[in-house]
Structures are given as C-alpha cells and as structure tokens.
C-alpha cells in the first residue's frame, strides 16, 4: 500500500495570512492603519483640548508646540485631527459592517432562492443604484438631524446609517453572483440530500466560500465610506460641529485659504493616507484569497 506523503495540515486562515503578508505594501498599510487607530484612541493623552480656543495664538504655522499649527480660533490642529480620526475611522468601519450585513442578506436570498424573490430584490437594488447617492445623502442628512429623537440628533450615528443605507447594493450584487454559481455545486446537492435545510446550506456551506470576495469588497466600501463621510462633513451636511472630523476641518481650512494656505494640508492628507492604506490592504487580500495567484514558496 502506498501512503500519501505526510503533509502538515494548515488552516485556511493561516495560509491566507501568510500570503497576505507576502504583499509587502499591504503589510505596511496594516501598520499605518494600526498606528492611526491607536493614535486616535489615545488622542486624550494629547496636552491640547481640540475645542479649546486661544485667539491670541491663531493661524500659528506648524511649530514645536503645535506640530500641525493652529486654526483661525487658535485651536491645536493636531489634536483636532486625532479626535477627527476617531470619527472618520469609526464611521468607515461601522457603516461598512452595516452595509455588508444588509448586502449579504439581500444577495444571499436573491441568489439562493431566485424566482420572484430575486426579481423583486434586484429591481429595488437597481433603483437604489440609480440614485444619485450624494444628493440623497445630503437631503437625508439635513432631514434626519432635525428630528426630535435624541438618537437621530447624534450626527455620527445618522451619518453611519445613511451611508450604509445607500451602499449595500454593491455587496448585494456581488454575493448574489457568488450564490448563483455556488448553489449549483456538488457540496450543496450533497447537503440537501442529507436533509440540510435552506438556512443551514446558506449559512454553513455557501457563505464561508464567499468570505474572500466579501472582505475584498469590504475594503473598497470602507475606503469609499471614509471619503463620503469626509465629503459630507466638508459640504456641511455630515457630522456637525463641535465634533471635529477630517472633512469639517478641511472645510474650515478652505475658508482660510488666503490667510493660511497650509491649514488644508493635514486633514486632507490624513484622509488620503487612510484611504490609500485601505486600498492597499484590499489589494493584498485579493492576492491572498485568489487561488490562481501562485506565490514562490
């Protein structure tokens, strides 16, 4: 009897992780995001209050006391950017979770069951895809914030929900496409033959096979959520003052473009670096999950 050569078993997660860090830029990008996240969480250790005004020290250029300078009210820009990072990263992460969750449910139901369920869900998806999103976001943002309920006045929460409400269509389409292919596979037939119910087949058998593409599209969603939140706040319809966000800091900087042209550099640069890092992470994940990319071992 011939024995199969001994092979060390490796979990899927381990293989993916190893392949991910082969993509050097993706590894660096993870580091950048971690540093940004930790700096934002520890923003309270900073000696300056992000809302403390100091009119005698306004428009200071970057110096040893104020690394990023001060704005028109003499507030420390570095401190505002660190606190703003909390909002931007939280909005990006949470709205992505929400939108992926909704998209997975819609896409799974649509792709697995097909028929009238698919028709109805996909028409709704199409209608949402035709929405000029940012216009609707602006209207929604203005509308919800004027409600009496306290939770709706918390603009961070409102922004998270409305960004998710207008971005779930992309993961929904992706997951539907994956389900259309996977539901015809033998392992699904086998599970059904063994008496597996639809719920069990969807959650335990098909969904785990979709993790890779969902994660990759999640990074795209997160990058665009951060850009959208900053854009909304920049236009004045996102997170409201006094809560600083990268977008609103940029917006006040624009008004001072003649007085202090450097003010706009740092908040925009933070958005740019964060989005770029997330895009590189997405690139790394794509390689890591792609069975056709063969890395030299």
């Amino acid at each position, binding site marked *: 009897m011939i024995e199969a050569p001994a092979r060390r078993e490796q979990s899927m997660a381990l293989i993916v992780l190893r392949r991910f860090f082969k993509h050097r830029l993706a590894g660096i990008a993870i580091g950048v995001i971690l540093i940004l996240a930790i700096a934002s969480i520890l923003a309270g250790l900073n000696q300056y209050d992000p809302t403390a005004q100091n009119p005698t020290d306004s428009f200071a250029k970057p110096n040893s006391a104020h690394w990023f300078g001060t704005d028109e009210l003499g507030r420390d820009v570095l401190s505002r950017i660190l606190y703003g990072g909390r909002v931007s990263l939280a909005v990006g992460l949470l709205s992505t979770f929400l939108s992926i969750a909704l998209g997975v449910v819609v896409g799974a139901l649509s792709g697995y069951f097909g028929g009238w369920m698919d028709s109805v869900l996909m*028409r*709704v998806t*199409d*209608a949402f*895809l*035709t*929405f*000029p*999103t*940012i*216009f*609707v976001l*602006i*209207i*929604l943002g*203005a*509308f919800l914030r*004027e*409600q009496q309920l306290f939770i709706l006045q918390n603009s961070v929460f409102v922004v998270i929900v409305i960004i998710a409400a207008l971005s779930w269509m992309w993961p929904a389409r992706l997951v539907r496409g994956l389900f259309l292919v996977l539901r015809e596979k033998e392992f699904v037939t086998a599970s059904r033959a063994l008496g597996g119910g639809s719920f069990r087949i969807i959650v335990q058998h098909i969904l785990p096979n979709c993790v890779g593409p969902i994660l990759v599209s999640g990074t795209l969603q997160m*990058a665009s959520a951060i*850009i959208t939140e*900053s*854009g909304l706040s*920049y*236009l*004045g*319809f996102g997170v409201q003052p006094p809560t600083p966000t990268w977008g609103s800091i*940029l917006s006040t*900087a*624009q008004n001072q*473009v*003649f007085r202090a*042209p450097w003010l*706009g550099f740092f*908040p*925009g*640069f933070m*958005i*740019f670096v964060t*989005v*770029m890092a997330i*895009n*590189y992470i997405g690139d790394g994940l794509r390689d890591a999950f792609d069975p056709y990319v063969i890395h030299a071992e």
Partner: protein
Amino acid sequence: MKTYALRRILQTIPILFIISILLFLLVRAAPGGPLTAARRNPNISKEQLEAIEEKLGLNDPLPVQYGRWLGDMLKGNMGESIKFRRPVSEMIGERIPNTLLLVGVSFLITLVLAIPIGILSARKPYSVFDYSMTTVTFIGQSIPVYWLGLGLIVIFYVALKNPFTGEPLFPVGGLNTRGKEGELLDTLWHLTLPVAALSLGWIAWYSRFLRSSMLDVLHEDYVRTARAKGLKDNMVYYKHALRNAILPLVTLIALDLPSLFAGALFVETIFSWPGMGRLFWDAAKGRDYPVLLGVVMITAVLIIVCNILADLAYGWLDPQVKYD
C-alpha cells in the same frame, strides 16, 4: 434592436416612479421646512404664515401634494423655487449645459489618457512604466476630489502668479472673467482646474481597470492565433484585444455614473462652477425643496438615459449580445 431599445426604455419607468415617490416623501416630510426663516421673523403674524402655507399647498395631504407635483413634472413644470420665486425648470435649464460641459470635457480627457495608459501597462506588465503607473493610479484613486481641488486652488491661484500681470495663474470661480462672457477661450481657461480635479481619479480608476481587463484578454486563444498568423503587435493590441477588453469598461462606466455626478457636485461647489451641483448645494443650505427635488430627478433621469446608451453601445461593440 429597435424593440430592445423600446423595452429598455419602458423598464426604466417603474424605477423612475419608485425614485420619485421616495424622494418626494423624503423631502416633503423633512421638518424645518421652507418657512423656517419666516417663522422666526417676529414681523410676520400667525395669520400671514397660515396664508402662505395655504397658498403653497403645504397643508394638503401628502398624496395630493405628490399627485400635483408629479402631474406638473410630466408637463415639464417643476414648480417654483421658494427662495428665488423662479420656475425650477428654468433655473436647472440654465445650469445643465455648464454641468454637461464640465463632466463631458473631464470624461473625454479621462478616456484619452486612461486608455493608452491601460494598454501600455498591459503590454509590458511589471515593467518600470507599469509599476510607476500602478503607484500613480493608487494615489489618484485615493485622493479625495475636494482635497485635490483645494490643493489646486492653493497652488495655481494663491501661490503661483502670472509673471507678466501679477494675476493668479488660473482663475477660480465662475464660467468667465467679467466682461468676457461667452468667449470660448476664456471659458476653457476657467475650466482647466475643475477638469483637472475631476478627471484625475477617473483616469486612475479606468486605466487600472483596463490594464487588468487587457491582461485577461491577452491570454485568450484568439490573441495567440492572431499573433501566430504574423499580425503586427499594434494590430493585435489595438484591433483584436482592445475591442474585447473595453467591453467590461462600458458596463463599469454606466454603473459609475452616479459617482461621476457626485464628483461634479464637489468640484462645482469648490470652484463655484455654476452647474447643477452648485445649485443643489445652495438649495440644500436654504432648504429650497422644489429645487432639491428637481435637481435629483433630473440627475436620476440623466443617469438612466446614460445607462440605456451604455447598454446600446455594449450591443454595438459586442455582436454576441442578442436582443430578444
């Protein structure tokens, strides 16, 4: 083909209907309302306020208001701006050419640059050119359009001056310099910075997409056949491969249209470009409902029309698509 086009157009009617209801409910249900300023004004009595509400029809049941609005819309009457007391259709009509000029020119420049970059990158993958383009496109994809716009203003308007006149190198704001209205050259000069801000991200996005789609196609058998029978490289790339590689790009562009108009909204706001985006932003600040509704409806219609055109273009580019 004709029946297909017709059916495609009929299919969009329910979508437009859903969008119109949602938007109407959304905007009309918004609190604050167009009379906020009037309510705060102590000189306007309660009776006068009620009279204004009655006159604007703000007290009727919502379905009645919607029905009236939709009927007007179909007749091309989009109501009157609450702030400017002018027909919305007239206000939007003035702005549409400016937005289409901005978006159209940016789009043309995007295609002119993105297609050659994508092809050249795919021709010599992992070359120095390909690597530097990949880096540049990653940067272009990640730069928020509003930061890029602000940066362009700081560099070309605030910092750099024309050495002869001492005026800013590029103008910011409006279509024309005062006194030069309607001059094409002056408009193009004003268009430079907005177009640059708007197209960089698209160039990055589309050239990257075309690169990977070209790489996919280049592995196909028919490309090998074309090479084997001795066709010139240029012929293989531009005639055989590009035609198939560009198909997914058409779909991508159609799906991306809403975000293209979103980009225009930011650019118009930053550069005070008198287009629909700027109109919308001003109207949103003043809660001018009829204008908001009108702009969103027109944008949705524009997007749907472009989608249909993209579908038809797809059929024209790919003879395999059957219309039945």
